[in-house]
């Protein structure tokens, strides 16, 4: 619940307005969009991929797609933040699906360079993140986005419905089915991830 989708102050121009200014060659809009959107894209990618270099590649790739689409952007059809969220999610999913599959055990997680107090917690957190990301990658896109928007971004069901262009009832169904699918994909890993006993 740490990265609201629309965290900027309401008196600032929204992303669509900035993108329109960028398409007209406004360098200040390029800087504003970079500062506003790159941290979100990177944080989202890190949460799914857990690797700085890969997350940076994904964030840069997603932002490049935004720059390229700017001249053709149609204001009002979709929110820029939602479009970018979806692009990042799909780029990460592509990478996750190319990774070797299988349950993640604690001893498979990379050791921190300098073991210190909290290292065990770090390993546990990384094992959880990695297992969840792999399971999310196996979900159909709308289920994945609905679950991520709900649990990673703290969006309410009506907000998710608006962003995905579906009804609130459909969001409830998507998140419920998504979580059941995650439970099936993560079956047998609860104890290893510290959720039993």
């Amino acid at each position: 619940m740490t990265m609201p989708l629309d965290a900027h102050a309401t008196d600032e121009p929204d992303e669509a307005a900035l993108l329109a200014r960028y398409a007209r060659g406004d360098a200040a809009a390029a800087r504003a969009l970079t500062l506003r959107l790159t941290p979100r894209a990177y944080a989202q990618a890190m949460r799914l991929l857990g690797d700085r270099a890969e997350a940076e590649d994904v964030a840069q790739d997603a932002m490049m797609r935004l720059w390229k689409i700017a001249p053709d952007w149609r204001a009002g059809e979709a929110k820029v933040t939602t479009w970018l969220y979806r692009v990042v999610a799909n780029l990460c999913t592509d990478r996750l699906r190319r990774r070797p599959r299988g349950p993640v055990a604690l001893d498979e997680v990379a050791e921190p360079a300098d073991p210190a107090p909290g290292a065990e917690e770090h390993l546990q957190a990384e094992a959880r993140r990695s297992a969840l990301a792999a399971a999310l990658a196996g979900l159909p896109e709308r289920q994945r986005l609905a679950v991520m928007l709900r649990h990673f971004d703290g969006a309410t069901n009506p907000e998710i419905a608006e962003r995905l262009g579906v009804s609130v009832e459909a969001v409830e169904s998507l998140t419920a089915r998504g979580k059941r699918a995650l439970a099936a994909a993560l079956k047998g890993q609860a104890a290893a991830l510290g959720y039993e006993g």
Partner: protein
Amino acid sequence: MTDRQDKVDWVDALLDDVGGAAPADPSGDLMARVLADAEAAMPAPGGAPVREGLWRQMLAGLGGWLSVGGLVAATAVGFAVGLGALSTVGLDALWLGEYGAYYDDTLGFSVNGWDFEEG
């Protein structure tokens, strides 16, 4: 509590734990690279290049809708006369065709729209 509910509960906890982790901050290098990309891809000041579809380019090349309308009408009339069927088809049919709607609905390109995969 059912077994099925237990399974979803621990997944809920997992989602909240992973989602509640502090977001990673991007490096200065990444921000600089993204800004460099933005500046390199930015259209020239004053306006974005307008990408026009093939049909619009052909239309402009032929002199616009008015010219094409005349061309289409002349062709259709010639065709109808040739068939000797003008009296049964009627000229109105030529003007009531929905070519414009066909262009917008069938050939138009939606930039922001997307179709989700099944799920």
